[in-house]
């Protein structure tokens, strides 16, 4: 009862604030104060409700008695309410001064409030229509936020890219919703999930319904979370105001991970959809991270970094580690919001200090330090690089949750943890330093602290989101593949990664690039051109769009515009 009456106000307050600003406070600076005050109260309410849940374990549904407007206050909603309102409050406070000289100051705060309210409804929707309405509205409000500065045609163009990709992603969600209503005769999510549990093998067009809708939901999540090849909008949204970029990269783009978690009871019976998500997520993580390295614009670079992180998040869902994806999106949200909001300072610093690495001759002659980098013996470095992450990751997981250690999803995550850790140690080894042992030990100590902290937090966070451990295990099982194929895949990937490191190491020491000569350079430039044009994905979309519009124009001329 208390949860219900208070819960309505969490999404309600920002919406009321937006309406008050739109109707009465346009053109005044009071709008910002009202907006920040509303968000502060929203955050306090959201945190209070989360604490209440932690104390009592009560889950509530606020039933609107209609098809639209019911809210589900389960652990996922409550955690995301606290996260979204927290990020939004930070963005609001930052915007108070940042946007003060921009036209449409009050409108901007009204739209920010509206966006926050809509996201809060989306993450707590208890039925399909409410979810669909909020999902749809996020795209619409984001369009107007990104296009806030209407004097700049580029802002409008990239806001349009975002809007059209979001609209594309809305279609599979509509389709999934209509199929679920058609097959399970309800729009209520808890009712649908209960009926899926009773009849998981119901079929439509020769396919199990959970599998079919799982594919649709995954596609909707891909568009919202900028998965390859539906990613082109994300890096270009930097033409919008910086606070909007922060809110988008910290919150809105994570909607894909939320969707997977909301429909977790369905994905327990949709193994192939999860495998697909793993493949798409992996490809996106690789492409996003690769393209990030090519950028010379800090905001664009952060955009591709988000794409890579979203790839990891979807990949985690594909492995069945659903709560880890939520933990990832929250951690990434705070981290990316701080990076975006601090981007201006970084640009300012770069103007003062160019950041060019020191010249070895200058270092040697003027600073009287050894020009040749001091490094550990390569056998020691290789041993540390390969073995330490395996030992640390395995032990920390073994002590926290031994039974999960045998699930394929956990093994793959450990594998990625190993690759990432080894990469960090390898990079540390390549750095020139006066005291290589001290550097390596420092990195190792940080690594151990991060791994143990991450393992403990993610484990207990998983228990919070999925109190029924059977559900977590079902998700891991759904994401599993045949044992032999899995072992072969892991061995192949391990060989690829170790081979890659060896190639990088020897390419430098043996100067392999010079041996290949002009042909090698040509291949290198070809790949560079391909990547710098972002694999021509945006160009292909643009050309296809032009062809459709040309066809439309011909039809109109033929039918005399009637």
């Amino acid at each position: 009862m208390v949860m219900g009456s208070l819960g309505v106000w969490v999404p309600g307050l920002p919406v009321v604030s937006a309406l008050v600003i739109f109707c009465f406070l346009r053109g005044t600076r009071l709008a910002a104060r009202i907006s920040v005050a509303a968000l502060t109260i929203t955050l306090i309410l959201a945190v209070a409700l989360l604490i209440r849940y932690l104390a009592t374990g009560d889950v509530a549904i606020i039933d609107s008695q209609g098809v639209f407007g019911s809210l589900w206050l389960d652990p996922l909603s409550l955690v995301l309410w606290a996260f979204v309102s927290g990020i939004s409050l930070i963005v609001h406070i930052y915007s108070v001064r940042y946007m003060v000289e921009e036209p449409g100051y009050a409108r901007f705060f009204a739209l920010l409030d509206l966006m926050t309210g809509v996201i809060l409804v989306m993450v707590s929707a208890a039925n399909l229509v409410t979810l669909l309405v909020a999902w749809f509205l996020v795209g619409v409000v984001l369009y107007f936020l990104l296009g806030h500065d209407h004097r700049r045609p580029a802002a409008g163009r990239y806001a349009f890219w975002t809007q059209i990709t979001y609209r594309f992603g809305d279609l599979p969600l509509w389709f999934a919703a209509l199929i679920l209503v058609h097959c399970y005769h309800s729009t209520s999510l808890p009712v649908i999930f209960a009926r899926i549990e009773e009849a998981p093998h119901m079929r439509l067009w020769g396919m199990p319904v959970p599998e079919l809708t799982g594919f649709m939901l995954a596609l909707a999540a891909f568009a919202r979370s900028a998965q390859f090849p539906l990613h082109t909008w994300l890096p270009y949204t930097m033409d919008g105001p910086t606070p909007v970029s922060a809110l988008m990269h910290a919150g809105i783009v994570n909607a894909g991970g939320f969707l997977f978690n909301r429909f977790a009871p369905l994905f327990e019976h949709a193994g192939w959809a999860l495998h697909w998500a793993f493949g798409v997520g992996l490809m996106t993580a690789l492409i996003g991270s690769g393209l990030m390295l090519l950028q010379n614009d800090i905001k664009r670079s952060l955009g591709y970094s988000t794409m890579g992180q979203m790839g990891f998040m979807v990949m985690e869902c594909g492995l069945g580690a659903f709560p880890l994806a939520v933990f990832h999106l929250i951690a990434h949200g705070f981290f990316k919001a701080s990076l975006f909001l601090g981007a201006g300072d970084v640009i300012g610093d770069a103007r003062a200090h160019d950041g060019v690495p020191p010249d070895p001759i200058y270092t040697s002659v003027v600073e009287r330090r050894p020009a040749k980098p001091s490094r550990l013996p390569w056998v020691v470095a290789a041993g540390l690089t390969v073995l330490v992450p395996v030992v640390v990751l395995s032990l920390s997981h073994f002590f926290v949750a031994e039974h999960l250690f045998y699930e394929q999803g956990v093994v793959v995550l450990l594998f990625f943890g190993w690759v990432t850790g080894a990469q960090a140690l390898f990079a540390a080894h390549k750095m020139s330093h006066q005291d290589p042992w001290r550097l390596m030990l420092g990195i190792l100590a940080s690594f151990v602290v991060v791994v143990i902290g991450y393992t403990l937090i993610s484990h207990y966070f998983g228990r919070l989101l999925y109190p029924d451990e059977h559900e977590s295990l079902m998700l891991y099982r759904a994401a599993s593949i045949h044992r032999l194929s899995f072992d072969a895949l892991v061995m192949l990937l391990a060989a690829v990664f170790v081979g890659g490191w060896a190639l990088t190491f020897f390419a430098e020491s043996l100067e392999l690039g010079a041996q290949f000569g002009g042909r090698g350079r040509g291949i290198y430039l070809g790949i560079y051109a391909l990547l710098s044009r972002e694999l021509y994905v945006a160009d292909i979309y643009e050309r296809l769009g032009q062809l459709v519009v040309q066809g439309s124009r011909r039809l109109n001329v033929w039918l005399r515009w009637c």
Partner: protein
Amino acid sequence: MDLSFWILAALFVPLFPLSWIFNRLVATLPAGSAQGLAVLVLPQLGIELLHLIPPALFYPALVRHGVMVMATASALLYAVRALSARELGVWTRLVLCSGLATVWLGWSVGAPMAVLRLMALGWGLPAAVALYLTGILVRRVGGAYVGLHGGLVAVMPRMTASLVLAVLALTVTPVFPAFFMLWKGLGSVPVAWMPFWLPLIFLWGWAAGRLFQDLLFGDYRGEPVADIGGVSAVLIGLVFVASLALSLVGSGGAL
């Protein structure tokens, strides 16, 4: 008798190729307000005619499927055509014809008359507002070709805000009535038809996005022009508030 009712109904609740005549008829009306009134009244008249012929369930499946095919093709054709329209009046009429074709879908699956009336109203009301504003724009700027002057929002903020609301409502944006009506309509349609209907939502969104590009962004390059009055803007706002209330509080009994 029956056939003439069918033909008139397909003219007033436009279905291709009779939609061509409907479109022409509306376009030839002299003022924006007259056009707005026409798109509100004629579809309701068409639905009354549908009321006079036997319900869809009395017809053989072949006829019902034929109507569904025609409605789907008509809606998709007009949605595609709206992509290249930059004249506000033409754009509105094309999207309206596309949206009103969904009424036939509702009819073919046996939706009650009240639902059909609300479906027609869901598209007719924002179209009427858009056509009314188009008339004003033509009088003040000399034309409603949105790419002509660019950045209209800078000089006519009230007019642009009203147009944006009308366009959003016309392109099934929640929480306007057309969204809920479409949900209700599609909910009754066999699942196999959905892959043909869902692209409509994408095409309408695309068409709206292209229109906004020209309407909202860039610098205004025309002569100074007066915006619509505050009272007009409030009245238009009240129309949308009423339609929002209709959607949210029970969607007029349709949901």
